[in-house]
């Protein structure tokens, strides 16, 4: 399938060699693929951008917390002194690390091995911003290993690669690839969807039609550019479409199946990797009415209908605010101001070179906006977000990154403990909804807190226990290393340990971005003093890390 290039290539290829952990026993190197073309740096001019001045350590930490799977000391050192745009540009030019390549190098016979590859890449990949954005996109354009797709590991990885490949590309291309993907075709049952059969009382399947509108593009109600709903005189939100619209789109999405299907009804061949192909005899060729009353003429091919329908969706004014706001929520803060959403929407609608839907420009706008860079100073009591459980784990494992992650490393059941796993949502509605509001102070203040939806008296215990086990029982100064575990490296902390102030200053920056309160610091010191006998230095270090990493302060990104 050819994708129409909408971006103008500005830069030559910047060759970067990735550092892959040395070839120790059981080590697995990450592969990079040469990009097909030089990555163009997205043109960005966002209104109300923060001054693009050199970052302090703490400012660098905040940018890394928003744009990576967790700050490492080396990353903080590298980013501080740079401007936000310079860091973002460097990240955007790194070649992509793909999940499929990782899975080919792993034990793909193991259940949920793609999850282990995801962990490996979230922790080790250099193209962190791309990886983090792809993860955010995987929670908007949801496909899940549930519903019987868990056996299609390469299909899942291949789907995730679409998100990685297009993370800084154009949203229209992304919609196109996602719509034709056979795994999505199975997940939301567009694959095998056929034209009406009046004799048999069969009408087209509405599943994909409904969810591409409701979840992947425009949402249910008409939006202003700032993401607030448009309402009628009584204050009731105006719907963006109705049931009739869904039925028309359902007829658009007819006539597609596996690329190698030999039969449309009961194919034996199942190609979960190649884009789906059209079958003209199963496509509904009647006229259709799309969003905004746009008419599709009768007699068009499945392909022409699909492209016209995706254009129609992509050009709806809701897409900018709907997608921009969710990306802000995934990366920066649960409760962006209307102005922040409006400024990012403007970039989605038209970037500096007149392109609509440039995700690269949108991501830049999100991270360079004054609210992202200084919101914690403007709204110190409410700015930020509850960290997603997966990201709490990647932050820990990146902060104390092991020299190598063993080939046998296995945490494929993460979802059971964390209520979150890559491509492991319980439904197309993601793990949590963008408007979930935790009862109590958050709700009474009119705020939302999406990630709280999966946090309850059970999951808070399993998450805490997982952090504890990963810190206290799985470090490189403990003697019973198990190759299936991630073994955190505390060598640097052991060197600092004799000077407790130096150690705590270091952990404060590494785990809390320098926000440790005096009271928390006193508690950490006291707990360390309880392990004051000889030979317990490593115990003191891991107790300190445990108490900080499980604190409420470490659970929130600010």
């Amino acid at each position: 399938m050819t994708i129409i290039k909408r971006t103008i290539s500005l830069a030559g290829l910047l060759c970067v060699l990735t550092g892959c952990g040395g070839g120790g026993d059981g080590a697995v190197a990450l592969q990079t693929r040469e990009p097909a073309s030089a990555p163009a740096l997205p043109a960005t001019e966002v209104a109300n951008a923060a001054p693009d001045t050199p970052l302090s350590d703490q400012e660098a930490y905040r940018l890394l917390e928003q744009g990576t799977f967790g700050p490492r000391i080396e990353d903080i050192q590298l980013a501080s002194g740079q401007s936000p745009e310079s860091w973002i540009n460097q990240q955007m030019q790194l070649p992509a690390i793909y999940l499929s390549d990782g899975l080919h190098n792993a034990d793909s016979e193991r259940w949920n091995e793609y999850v282990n590859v995801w962990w490996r890449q979230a922790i080790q990949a250099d193209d962190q911003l791309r990886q983090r954005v792809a993860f955010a996109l995987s929670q908007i354009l949801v496909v899940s290993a549930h519903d019987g797709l868990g056996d299609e590991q390469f299909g899942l990885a291949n789907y995730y690669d679409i998100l990685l490949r297009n993370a800084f590309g154009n949203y229209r291309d992304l919609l196109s690839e996602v719509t034709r993907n056979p795994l999505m075709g199975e997940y939301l049952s567009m694959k095998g969807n056929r034209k009406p059969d009046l004799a048999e009382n069969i009408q087209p399947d509405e599943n994909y039609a409904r969810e591409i509108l409701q979840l992947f593009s425009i949402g249910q109600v008409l939006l202003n550019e700032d993401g607030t709903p448009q309402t009628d005189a009584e204050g009731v939100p105006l719907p963006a479409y109705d049931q009739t619209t869904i039925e028309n789109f359902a007829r658009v999405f007819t006539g597609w199946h596996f690329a190698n299907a030999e039969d449309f009804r009961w194919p034996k061949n199942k190609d979960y990797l190649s884009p789906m192909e059209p079958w003209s005899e199963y496509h509904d060729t009647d006229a259709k009415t799309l969003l905004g009353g746009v008419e599709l003429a009768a007699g068009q091919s499945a392909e022409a209908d699909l492209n016209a329908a995706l254009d129609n969706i992509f050009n709806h004014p809701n897409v900018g605010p709907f997608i921009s706001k969710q990306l802000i929520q995934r990366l920066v803060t649960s409760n962006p101001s209307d102005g922040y959403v409006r400024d990012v929407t403007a970039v989605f609608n038209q970037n500096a070179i007149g392109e609509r839907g440039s995700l690269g420009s949108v991501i830049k706008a999100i991270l360079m906006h004054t609210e992202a860079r200084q919101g914690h100073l403007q709204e110190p009591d409410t700015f930020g977000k509850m960290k997603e459980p997966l990201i709490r784990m990647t932050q820990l494992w990146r902060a104390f990154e092991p020299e190598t992650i063993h080939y046998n490393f296995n945490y494929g059941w993460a979802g059971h403990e964390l209520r979150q796993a890559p491509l492991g949502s319980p439904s197309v509605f993601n793990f949590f909804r963008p408007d979930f509001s935790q009862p109590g102070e958050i709700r009474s203040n009119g705020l939302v807190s999406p990630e709280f939806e999966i946090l309850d008296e059970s999951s808070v215990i399993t998450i805490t226990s997982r952090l504890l086990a990963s810190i206290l029982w799985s470090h490189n100064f403990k003697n019973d290393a198990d190759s299936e575990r991630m073994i955190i490296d505390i060598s640097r902390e052991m060197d600092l340990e004799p000077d407790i102030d130096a150690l705590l200053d270091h952990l404060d920056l590494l785990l809390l971005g320098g926000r440790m309160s005096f009271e928390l610091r006193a508690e950490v010191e006291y707990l360390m003093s309880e392990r004051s006998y000889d030979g317990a230095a490593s115990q003191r270090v891991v107790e300190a890390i445990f108490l900080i990493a499980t604190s409420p302060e470490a659970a929130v990104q600010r």
Partner: protein
Amino acid sequence: MNNFSRRRFLDLGTRTIAGAGLALGVNPALTLARAADSATSQSSDYRALVCVYLEGGCDGFSLMVPTGSYEHAELAQARGELAIPQHQLISLQGGNSPLGLHPNAASLQPLFDDGHLAMIANIGTLIEPTTQEQYLNNTVALPAQLFSHSDQSIQWQQLQGRDRAQEGWGARAADYLSDFQERDYLTSISLAGSNYWQSGSGQRPFSLTGSGVLEYQGLDGNNNWQSPRREAFERVLNLPRDHVFTTAYADLQKRAISITSELGQVLESNASLFTDQPEDNSLAQKLNMVAQLIAAQEQLGLQRQIYYVSMSGFDVHDNQSLELPELFKELTEALAFFQNKIDMLGKSANVTTFTASDFGRSLLSNGDGTDHGWGNHLMAMGGAVMGGSIYGELPSFALDGPDSVHRGRILPTTSASQYASTLLRWVGLDEAAVSEVLPDIGNFQTRDLGFMI
């Protein structure tokens, strides 16, 4: 609302058999027997409602199917290849509207025949009574975003008309119920984490899993090595903090610590009675945990409770003829297992289980599945249920008939508010409280569908 005025709303007396005549076909002998039975077997004043929520829109029209020749043919014509042949249905005795169960729902037959299970026909999210004409001309208040999973499941669980007040009707009811027990924080219990039904401004639900309450690892306060760590961990939770998210996180962690240790001990004491759940049935596992908690009701000093349990997978756009039978098997075996457990605990008359779901399915097939509908058949189960009958009104299943909109999406003939009201009256809310909890109930003539004692 202060405690004094809330107390006024509770009606703890035994209810009369109001509205029983609303059933399509009530077996009067059975009704009287059930009423007498209930009056004598009421072992205590304890009452619990258990909501079994079927995520994704359960096809109730395939679970309970009319067996009358005309009605069956009408439905079969609409359903095409998804229709269940008449001879495969499990015929139910009782009621004057012949009805059959899906062949994989055989576990429900004895419950129905013994009068412990009632079917309630064609319920849905109506704000006010709605005819086809009113729907088409948009002349009545309608729920926003009909046919959308997220909106209709929230609508079902909040029943707040067109408002999203962010309060579930379970939570509003629990506000009335929680005054009557020393551990008010155990009034609402969820085995499915956060949910909209139990979420409101008052007492929050307590969440646990089908395996019970979980232990913190490495934080045992009774272990000499771990206790300094445990104490430090708890002191950190109690530090002063000013950010709304860190405060909310600390609150949740504190709740988890205090309630789970207490509850863990109680559950350990009666665990041996609850080791026989069916294999590979996660709904049964969760309901088994509900039964275990209910067994500890007196020990915990609980008088009134609401439980939320969910089962997913009902959004059968594809492979309906393969997937739905499996789902029905798991669902109905779990329900029968649970009722059996409750009966053995001697709490049959104290516990009422009911089903709810986003919506029913459309009648038309999309080739190998169904799309989102509206009205749906549901069930209530327990010793206080006047079972063995079908309540409400069976709709016409004609594709172009008076109860169909968008070709094959069935207009509900009974409102979810009426269903909820019937259940809430049983659990002890008086009329005024029911009106408070269910703001739309006044739009309907009948506040009690009659399926509860």
